[in-house]
Each structure stands twice: as C-alpha cells, then as structure tokens.
C-alpha cells in the first residue's frame, strides 16, 4: 500500500488485484469490473504511460465509458439535515478541537429554546410529507444545554407528526455528562449517539482532558454504562476516534471498543486543528494507513466467517463501493446539510460555525440561495486540485471542506491507500460473502 500503487496516473480508472484476479475501478460511476489479464495489460500500459487519450479510448473500446452527469453543480438543494451547535461551550479541553474548546474562539453561548425551535421548524416545515429529515445536536458539548436539547427534540417530534415528516436524531457527545435519564430519552427518540473517545485509558486522557486537566476516560465509561447495558434496539451507539500522532494504536482501540459493546467504531485523522496541535503529518499518515489496514484485516477475517465486526470505516467503504457511490462532493455540507450556530445563523457545516465567509443564511429566513450556489460551484470536485486528475475523486469527493480550506490536502495518499485496500477487500468479499455486501448495501 505505497503511494506508487495508488498514485494517480490517469483520471479515468484505477487497477487493483486483491488476490482474486485483476480488477478495474472506473472513476465515472464508480464501476467495478473483474477483467481478464490481457485486458489489464492494455489498461496498465496506458496508465504507465500516463496517456489520457489511450486510457479514454480503452474505456470506450470495452464499453466502460458511462456518462453519469457529474459535471454540473446540483443547484439549490433543499435543507434536509441540520446540526444545532446547541452549546458553544465544553467541559473538556481537547488539544486539537476545531471548536477551540467549544466556543469557536468567541464567547461561550447556549442556544436559546426560541432559536432551537426556529431551526426545527425551518427543517421540518420545508420537508414534504413522507420525507426524512435529520437533526444533529453538536457543540461544544451538547449536553451542557440539556434542557433545550430535549425541548427541541420534543418540538421536532410533535411537529413531524403533524406534518407527516420523519425525523432522525443524532448527538455527538464527549460522554462525560450523560445521565441514565438521558439514555432513556435517547432510546425513546431513536437517537444515533456518537461518543468521542480517542483511545483506551491514558491514551484518551492525554488528548481529551477535562478543563481542570483531570483524566476523563473512566468517567466517560461509567457515564455510558446505561447506554451500553440497557439500551434499546431503537438506539445506535458509536465511538468516534480522532486519530493524532499520539494515539496511533488503532487495532487495540478498535478491539476494545467493540468488545465494550459499541454498535460501531470509526477513525478519522486529525488533519487541521486551529493551533496546528496534534495534526497528522506525512509519516503519521503512513503509520495510520498501516494500522487501518491491520484493522481492516481483522474486519475481513471476521466478516468473511460470518462474525459481525462493526469497524465503521470498512463498513462504509464497502457499502459505497458496492453501491457504486459517486459524488462530486465529500459530504452534504452547504447542500442538504447546514450547521446552525447558537445564535441561529446557518453555516456550511458544524465546523464552520462563526466563519462569516461560509455563512449560508439563518434559521428565520432560511438558506441564501446565491451563497449556496456559489459554495456548491466553488467546492465541486472538478474545481479542486489536484482532485480533477485523480481516480479516487468520486469516492473521496475532494476531502473535508473544513480541513482542505484550513490545511490543504496532506492526506491524499492515505485516502487513496485506504480506498485501494478496501477495493481489494471488496473483490475478495464479493467472492466469499456476496450476500453480506447485498445486505449491507441496503442499509443506510
């Protein structure tokens, strides 16, 4: 899994072989085919020569050139998902926090009930009967404003029933303030609960200390007991690990969190922090790719023999590869998804709260279409460099907007290396467990 295997050579395809024979990923449409060795040779020659004309001609010759219409920005996209920075304050002081210890570099603020209800109405009222919308509670630490969180949830639930709209709820929390009553509340409303945990024990404590410097790991696990032991099937509990150079012990972390009972565990590299602290650099990302690959090998071994192993990065990658997900954006930020600040202003996502350049409107007047159109046009992967020449552009989408704007694209080799490994794993599981892939592709 070196850069030489996955570096972009031609923009139209990527060749891979995970031990089940040669395969090709066709970028447009994210199409995956098994190909005969003699055909692979032709594609390999064109890629080695970096000959775009020959590469395009080969795709056409073998009928693999499918036009999927990704050139245009999508235009005005209706709002279907909103995050509420319900508490722009936090009781932890994580070194790398994009929200700068919760307050986004400004004064600590709690979202008022009035603003939270206006945000809910903006979202639910704009949806048609039968549609699904999603409300995410973020911060800071959202449970620092429990009263408004609950009030907004109940307001959304009631309003959704009136209008025939379905609402999904999620919360990302540091876990330190969860009470048994919260667990009951989350289960009742079918929350997807994500807890930020950066490792096991002292590893976590180094990165995610309390404001007073005290460790938090044991406290978080104690607080999560009601969620882990008594949670209903209606609720989903995930662990999210932000990977920095100081917690590169991913297989152990994954095993431990899965054994604790989390429904899924996912890793995300710290690529851009406000102070530069704990950002991942080149060799760190190489080490992370090795560890992610080790995690994926555990995942594949278990899934291959029918044992669940909820390693979120692998599950998501396989789902997207099997579906052939192809998109010119990394996520829905600034499109169907907006982040609302405690004041009720709308931003391209939760990470851009307080960034006036990425302000998209407010919850009372809604999304400003001109700003949204400009954002979607600017951020389209065809306008990103070096993305437009990369085979992975429609699986990656160009990388997190916030990280790219903050730091550029230091992780392309890591992303391509991970996708390459997942493509190889996909080809193997496609032989061994096709029914698993079909089942997974139907889920969200």
């Amino acid at each position, binding site marked *: 899994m070196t850069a030489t295997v996955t570096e972009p050579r031609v923009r139209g395809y990527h060749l891979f072989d995970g031990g089940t024979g040669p395969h090709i990923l066709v970028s447009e449409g994210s*199409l995956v*085919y*098994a*190909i*005969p060795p003699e055909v692979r040779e032709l594609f390999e020659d064109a890629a080695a020569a970096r000959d775009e004309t020959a590469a395009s001609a080969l795709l056409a010759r073998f*009928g*693999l050139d*499918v036009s999927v219409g990704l050139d245009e920005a999508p235009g005005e996209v209706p709002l279907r998902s909103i995050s509420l920075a319900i508490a722009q304050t936090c009781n932890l002081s994580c070194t790398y926090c994009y929200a700068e210890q919760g307050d986004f570099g400004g004064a600590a603020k709690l979202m008022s009930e009035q603003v939270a209800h206006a945000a809910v109405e903006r979202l639910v009222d704009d949806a048609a009967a039968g549609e699904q919308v999603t409300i995410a509670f973020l911060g800071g630490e959202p449970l620092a404003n429990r009263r408004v969180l609950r009030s907004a949830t109940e307001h959304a639930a009631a309003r959704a029933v009136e209008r025939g709209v379905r609402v999904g709820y999620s919360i990302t929390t540091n876990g330190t303030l969860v009470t048994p009553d919260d667990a009951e509340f989350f289960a009742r409303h079918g929350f997807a609960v994500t807890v930020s945990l950066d490792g096991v024990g002292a590893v976590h404590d180094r990165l995610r200390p309390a404001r007073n410097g005290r460790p938090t790991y044991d406290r978080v696990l104690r607080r999560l007991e009601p969620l882990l032991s008594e949670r209903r099937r209606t609720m989903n509990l995930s662990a999210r690990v932000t990977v920095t150079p100081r917690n590169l012990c991913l297989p152990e972390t994954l095993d431990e969190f899965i054994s604790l009972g989390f429904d899924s565990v996912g890793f995300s590299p710290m690529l851009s922090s406000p102070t530069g602290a704990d950002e991942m650099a080149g060799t760190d990302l190489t080490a992370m790719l090795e560890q992610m690959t080790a995690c994926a090998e555990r995942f594949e071994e278990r899934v291959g023999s029918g044992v669940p192993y909820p390693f979120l990065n692998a599950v998501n990658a396989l789902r997207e590869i099997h579906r*052939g997900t192809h998109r010119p954006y990394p996520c829905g930020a600034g499109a169907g998804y907006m982040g609302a600040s405690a004041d009720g202003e709308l931003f391209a996502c939760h990470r851009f709260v307080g960034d006036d350049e990425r302000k998209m409107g407010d919850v009372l007047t809604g999304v400003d279409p001109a700003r949204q159109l400009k954002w979607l046009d600017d951020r389209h992967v065809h306008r990103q460099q070096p993305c437009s020449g990369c085979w992975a552009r429609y699986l990656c989408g160009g990388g997190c907007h916030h990280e790219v704007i903050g730091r550029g694209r230091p992780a392309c080799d890591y992303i391509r290396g991970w996708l390459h490994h997942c493509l190889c794993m996909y080809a193997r599981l496609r032989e061994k467990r096709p029914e698993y892939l079909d089942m997974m592709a139907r889920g969200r």
Partner: protein
Amino acid sequence: MEPIAPRNLTAQLAYRARGNPPGTTPASSVGNFYPGLELDLRNLWRRVFAGIELHEAVALVLAVDDDAPPEVQALVGEILLTVDGHPVWIEVTGPREPGGASESLGNWSLEWSNALADIVHKAGQEVRCTFTKGDDDQQDVSLRVRQIFEPGPEGGEDARTAVLSRELAQPGELTQSLCSPWQNDFIGCGCYYWAASRPDYVNVEFDEADGSRGHNWLQRDRTPATPKFYTLRQADLLQHADIIAGWEDKLSFVLKGRDDHDRDGD
C-alpha cells in the same frame, strides 16, 4: 478470452455485453409493454397471485403450485373471470363490419397492467377471484396478492423500493418471450400500428358499390385466387408458431399494397 465481469451495482446497471449496442442497457430501455423491446413486462403478472400461474396475456390458469390447497389445485385450465369484483375476462360487442349491427365478438382478456392496477395496492392481502371452466359453473377462491416490489430496508412508508419483487418472476422469465420480438409484435400489434412493413389489409380492390375487398395480412391463404374477404377467424390466420418457424415462406414483400404476387417471379 474471459469476459469483463461487472462486480458492483453501478457496473451491473451500466454493463454492456460484448457486441451489444449502447441501446441494450436498462437505462436506454424502450418501455413498450406489449411485449416491450428489452423486458416483456406482461410476465410480471403471471405469478401475481400466490399458488397459481397465469398466461402472460390471457386470463387462463396454466399451472398451480404443488403445495397449493385442493381448491387451488383444481384451477388448472380454468379462466379467471373477476378479481376483487372487477372483470378481467369480458365479452366484446360491436359491429363486425362498418355499419353493421352490434353483436358479440367473443370473449377477450383485458390487458393485465390496466386490469390489475387496483390490486397492486393490496399486496399481501387476499382478494376474491372468480374462475370458470368455460361453462356456467363458477367458483370463488381467495388468493393472496404477491408483493409487486421488493420491500425496503425500513418499514413504514419506506417499505417499497423500485425493485421488482423476486416472488413475481423466476430468473429469465422477464425476457423469455422476447426471443423473437418482431414476430411477436407483428402478431400482437395490428390496428394500423405499423407503417408499410406490416400492413393490416393487403391486396385491396375497390368497388364503387361495395366498398373495398382484400385480405388480412396475416391470412394463411392469400393468393391471387383466394376470395377477397377480410377474416379475423383465428383458424384462418397465421399464429406465432407459423411466423416464428417459417416467416420466410409465409410473409412476402408488400409492393404497392399487394403481397399476393408470384414469389418465384420478379
């Protein structure tokens, strides 16, 4: 050389078999239902009722499941008359010739996708179906309507997808009647649907007093000596088997409206 094999879902959707033109992918489908050019969607209705198999175009029970209850087993060969109170096999009446008196033209099956549109919404429920052996004897049997679409990952309003239910057709059934599409269409689509290549009425002679006289283009016997009388009697007409097996002998070039010319001559 081994084939290029589509592995993921978008590749399967976009797949073009070697040698096939671009117009052979599902996305370029011409959605002609009778029988269609890529799929014969009439076949979807054959197994719409659990326990029995219908003809794709006629309200006739062709087969029953081995494990069906006795009252269902007895339905083989019977005609389905009504479904949930709506007729699917009806007597057609009208004039046999222009200006003629209205009379019975026999019984015909209604086209399934229109006739059964209402019961699509009753998937999973039982509906009352009336059958006959062709005599006056009729019997009612309740049959469960199968799912038309595969269920989605979630219940409630997401319970349906756009994927046709696997219960409705065995692999290959949606295309099995397409092996001879043009022959199928030449028989199925009359009523001046076609341009010159498949006329309805040939060898026509006009008479000021009596109007026109000529042959049905599908008439078996249409030589210059054959009396010119337009017939719709099935016994007089070419059937699927005739035209599939021997179209070269049975059909002629239509030149200036005539196909009763001497085939050995010029």
